[in-house]
Each structure stands twice: as structure tokens, then as C-alpha cells.
């Protein structure tokens, strides 16, 4: 595990299962996995994403990533409709490792219940959560 890990940007919301969501002013939300997740997963070699138009549910799996001989589910922080997927990840799945909060974004969602994000963790609470996990 990397001693340099892990970035936790302000302005995002986080889940206990290590996904992040950014709510934009136009109402669309961007979703990805955190620096902690990519660090623990190892080199991502394959990404499976839903199709646009698919419905996602808060806490439910919307796709998976493959790393170190493992497929790992990725769960949506919020409910809604997938309006865009990051097509770059098919050619360059490693973007999730090198840029988990920027170029490595996974899906964009039109939220069906914007208030769901209020129940997610802010940066401080997520930092505490992941430090507690790593302390075991």
C-alpha cells in the first residue's frame, strides 16, 4: 500500500465503500472511486460501465473494475439515470489510478433524489473513515 495515499478533495461527497460524487450546478453529478480505493485495488486493467440511459440506485452496483486478478463492484452514491460514461476508460483504464478524481471519472448521473447526497460523507468524515479502516 502506498505511503503517499490518499487525496480527499473538498467539495465532493463520499461513500463508506470509497466512491465519490460531485454535484454540478447544472444538476448533473459525476461519480468515480477515491484515491484510497485505487491505491488498494492496484493497477486497474479493465472497467465495465453501464450504458447511458441505465438507472442506478444509491448503494447499488453500477459496474466493476478489474485489478490484480479481481473484479470489484463499484457502487453508485446516488440514484438516477446515467447520462454519460467515460469512454476513455475502455482504452486507458489506468486513468482511474493516475487521476481518480479528474480524468478517471466513471459515470455522470442525473439524480432522481438530489437530497440523497446530504446523507453522504464530507471530506473530513471520509478521511476519518478510511484512516480507521487502514488502522486495522
Amino acid at each position, binding site marked *: 500500500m502506498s505511503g503517499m495515499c490518499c487525496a480527499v478533495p473538498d467539495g465532493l461527497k463520499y461513500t463508506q465503500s470509497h466512491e465519490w460524487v460531485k454535484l454540478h450546478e447544472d444538476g448533473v453529478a459525476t461519480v468515480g472511486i477515491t484515491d484510497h480505493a485505487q491505491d488498494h*485495488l492496484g493497477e486497474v486493467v*479493465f472497467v465495465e460501465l453501464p450504458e447511458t440511459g441505465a438507472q442506478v440506485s444509491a448503494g447499488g452496483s453500477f459496474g466493476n473494475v*478489474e485489478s490484480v486478478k*479481481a*473484479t470489484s*463492484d463499484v457502487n453508485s452514491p446516488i440514484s438516477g439515470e446515467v447520462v454519460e460514461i467515460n469512454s476513455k476508460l475502455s482504452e486507458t483504464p489506468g486513468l482511474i489510478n493516475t487521476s481518480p478524481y479528474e480524468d478517471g471519472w466513471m459515470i455522470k448521473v442525473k439524480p432522481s433524489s438530489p437530497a440523497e447526497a446530504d446523507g453522504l460523507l464530507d471530506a473530513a468524515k471520509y478521511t476519518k473513515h478510511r484512516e480507521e479502516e*487502514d488502522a*486495522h
Partner: protein
Amino acid sequence: MSVTGSAGARGAARPLMRLVTMSGAPILRQLHLEERLLRRTADNWCVINDGTAPPTIVMGVSGRVSELVEIEPVLRDRVPVVRRYSGGGTVIVDQGTVFVTIICDKSAVAGLQPFPRDIMSWSGQLYGKVFDRFGEFHLRENDYAFSHRKFGGNAQSITKNRWVHHTSFLWDYDVENMDYLKIPKRAPEYRLARNHTEFLCRMKEYMPSRSVFTDGVITALGEQFSVQPTDLETVLSNDEEFVPSTKLLSQQDLEEIVSSKGSSSLGVQEVEA
């Protein structure tokens, strides 16, 4: 989440692990069972399948058939090809293969985070207890090996609250079957470009019997879990709605790959295995 079990040393409760043992079950059936146990139950499981038939090629979720499989002889000899739900590489399995699958709730092992290397570290220690007295056992880059020769290949699937670690152990293997597989582009460093027969070894050359191996696995698990033999029929309800993702590739699928001149197989993302 299953937590009822029995008290071990020092009064600590060991979580329950249900044990299912099979012999010769087709690998497709085994993998479908695993997916159901992973996604549709809350219990911890160990599934042991001693041998399988017919000989079958099993690929990881993102494997590219054209890069991993010698398709022409596979089509000629009608060797089944399965794409499983977990990650990892390609194997050919037969009666000489012993499968051990561990399915756990994420809270089953205290302090274990549900990430690949964490789970592999835990499993490596578990299997060390099984194999240390039979040879120089190592977890080498996610393989189980005696010295530098692989005898067990692993793969995993991790959901939000549960994980699977499954292994195909080479009790024995038919060297001719290896001709159906290409040497993968993405290979562990310790392989050092060795061919299949130089890279692999047979467990039967290190251990006296299959039952010594499987009993050893159950004993090792018993240190952490309360292992309870379970009859599947009494546990699984009819779950007609569940559709496993593990698939048998059809002859037509394979023929299309041959005729497509190396293009993407079945819509899987173009990645190295």
C-alpha cells in the same frame, strides 16, 4: 450477515462457514453456484470441487479469446470455453484440478479490508498452514507455488459487502491440454518466459493424496471459522430470477472470433488478460 458459530480458544466466537463438497461437478455449474452464493446469500461458504469434467477452458472476465486460446484446435476438438465472473487469467481444468472457493462477508475476517491484495495476503497465510509441511510454499505474485513452480491459480470477485477468493489447484494436469492455451502477454515476472511445463508443477508430486489436501484446507479454515458441512438442497431456494454472469461461449461465438481477424471478442473491452 452470518455470525453464529462456536466459541474458539479464549471464548472468541468463530463465524460460521458452510462447507459444500462436490466431486467432478462441471465447472460451469460450480461457477454459477458460486455467483448465487456470493450475491444471493449472506453466509460464509467454502466450496470444494474435486475434479471436473469435461476438460474446459476458463477465462477471466476481461480475457480476449484470440490472445489467450488456440481457437482452431479448440474448435476442432470442441473444447468448452467459459468466461467466468471473476478477474484473472486463463486456465484449462479437468479431472486433475481441485477447486477451492472461499466466499465471505466482509466482516467475517476481523480487520480484513475487501481489496484484492488484502484478501490474497490472508489467503496466502491460510494456505501456508496447509502446504508448508509438504514443500517450499510461496504466494508468488498472486499464484500459489512450490519454490518457483505454480500449482494454484487464483481469482477474486469483490462486491460491496462480500468477496470470493477461488483457486484452481493442479493436483495433476494433462500436458497435452496446455496446447490449447497460448502463453499470455501479461504474465507474472517470476514466470521468466518459461513454457507451461517448466512453469507449473503437480501437487501429487508433493502430497500423498487429494484427501490430505482437502482435509488440510478444512482444518486450516477451522482455526478461524466454525466449519459446518452443508447440503446445498437444504439451503438454496428456487431462485429463477438470478442470472449468473459466467457464460459458456458458443461454437458460433468462437467461429466469429476466428473470422474477425483479431478484432474485439464479444464486445469485451480490448485489454490484456
